[in-house]
């Protein structure tokens, strides 16, 4: 086996200077400048830690997903949503530029099914992006997902609780998203090849009016 092939294998860790991560522009210039390659890591796990929904966790992904959706339509690959907390709203997805024909939703009755379905979706090679709402996963399980994402050219986005922030993770990128009154704040907790940073995001949604907590 030639040396180049050997070191190109995703299981071989090369320390510094990994040139293989190609990036997927996030659509937010403020965020891109702090990410290696200028975007989401394309063939890897991105972990998003958040403690409540509705704070912009999907809006922050939409420009990148819309771009992948174009590839997905051409290559007949799926954008798979595994165990989302609510139903993604079809009209809003389409307005964001997602091709609905490539959207595959997977509901899981049991928690262990979430990890199983995520791995199936990543390993099938027919998913271009996998979004999974995954609560618990061992380091080994996450590593398997990370390898599958690298091998099968898939962007894996895991939504998890901020409580796992202290746990180690093989994810290439780990961000913590918090909602604020005016803007979302995205803290880069871990990032292969760059330093952690914190970014304020102006999300691409109409400025909502203020109301008291409900």
């Amino acid at each position, binding site marked *: 086996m030639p040396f180049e092939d050997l070191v190109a294998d995703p299981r071989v860790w090369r320390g510094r200077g990994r040139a293989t991560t190609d990036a997927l522009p996030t659509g937010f210039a403020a965020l891109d400048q702090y990410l290696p390659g200028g975007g989401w890591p394309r063939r890897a796990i991105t972990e998003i830690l958040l403690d409540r*929904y*509705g704070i912009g966790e999907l809006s922050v992904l939409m420009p990148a997903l819309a771009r992948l959706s174009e590839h997905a339509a051409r290559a007949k690959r799926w954008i798979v949503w595994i165990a989302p907390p609510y139903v993604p709203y079809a009209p809003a997805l389409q307005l964001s530029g997602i091709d609905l024909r490539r959207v*595959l939703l997977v509901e899981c009755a049991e928690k262990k099914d979430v990890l199983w379905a995520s791995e199936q979706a990543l390993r*099938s090679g027919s998913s271009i992006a996998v979004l999974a709402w995954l609560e618990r996963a061992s380091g080994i399980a996450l590593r398997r997902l990370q390898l599958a994402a690298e091998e099968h050219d898939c962007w894996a986005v895991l939504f998890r609780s901020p409580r796992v922030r202290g746990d180690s993770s093989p994810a290439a990128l780990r961000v913590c998203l918090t*909602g604020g009154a005016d803007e979302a704040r995205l803290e880069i907790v871990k990032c292969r090849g760059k330093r952690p940073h914190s970014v304020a995001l102006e999300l691409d949604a109409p400025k909502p009016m203020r109301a008291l907590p409900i």
Partner: protein
Amino acid sequence: MAPLFRSFPLLPGESAPTPAESALLRRPAPRLWIGVAGLDWASAALMALASAARALTPLVCIVPPDGLLLEVHGSLKLFGGLESVKKKLVAELDRRRLRHHLCAAPTPLAASWLARAAAEDVLETSALPGRLSRLPLAVTRWPEDVLAGLAEMGIRTLGECIRLPRDGFARRVGREYLEQLDKALGKRPDPRVELGASPALRSMVELPAEITQTAALTSVLRDIVARLGLELRRLQRQVLSVELVFHHSHKPATREKLQLIEPTHEARRLLGPLTTRLERLALPAPVIAFGLIAVPVEARIEEAELFDALAPGRNPAAPAALVERLRARLGIERVYGLELVEDHRPERVWARRAEELFQASAPSAPPSLGTARPLWILPSPVRLRAVSAEIDGTMPERIESGWWDGGDIGRDYYAISTGRGQRLWIYKDHATRGWYLHGLFG
């Protein structure tokens, strides 16, 4: 004469032809079927008759309990016309002293039904509606209660059935019977299975010992499926469904059927979902023999594999295989796509898409949306206790719709944000004056 058949758009929930069926429909091969009815199947002459019929055409199928179907279009030239083919068939039947009625028609169901009524041949699809209309409903052999229900409505002939509004017929009688009418009239493909000549498609393994754990059967399953794949390739056939059969010593056999969303001839496409099914199956009794029944559909294997080689490392069947694998474990209803529906009501503008996940239909334009829509929608709106008065004074988006079908709504929608950064889509209902949470901007 007024047209007997009116075409209507597909109803919501009415299954459109599957991709495999559409492929068959597109194929312009003309068909002519001879239906034989009124045979006495108890006769030991059955298999002999079937093989004799196979001398006339390769496509012979059994119509339980007392009929036979032969596709003869390809044989007409060889045997010198329909009358000659029929004469040969009648000779075989008479030789075995089988009472029978024969009738030819362009669709298999029409041929069977006409034969049961001892009617005359129909050679053109365009003549089917008129000729079928005169038949009594009894020829369909639909269940007694269905026929009784139709009789109560004063419907006794096929013609009266065909003239009923399609949606009403589907709702009151059943969608499957509507589909049968379509198949008989040639509006929907009706792929038939030829009388099995290949023992490998029905494969049974006697187990050396009684087995109580399905895990012990996985290696047997792998062998059987591999053999099935080879056999399908040899026959140039595909399968749309596969049934696992578990024989017990003192109980009726347990059957587990796997329905695919696209036909395949590949063992590896079948093995994954079948293994998952096997693992999740609870056996009611020890198994003494285990086997598989796969019924090939008439569709041939397409020559797509040549071009697939251009995209190395990517199996074009994989998108379907993923859906099948997920559905095998999680259930069909839990794995689905999304589609837009022409409706102004926010909860009815989208629908789950379970069938035709691969249909390349053009993306429909979203029905006019006033302003932005949230990325998350709640399955049903949640009543809120109280909402700040600060909302008053801002312009809501008013949605009023649905008065024509009883599901009318009148709502004022607002996008608000909570102090903790959640952006919500809420509305005030005009009727109840209450506030509801309907979505999150995500």
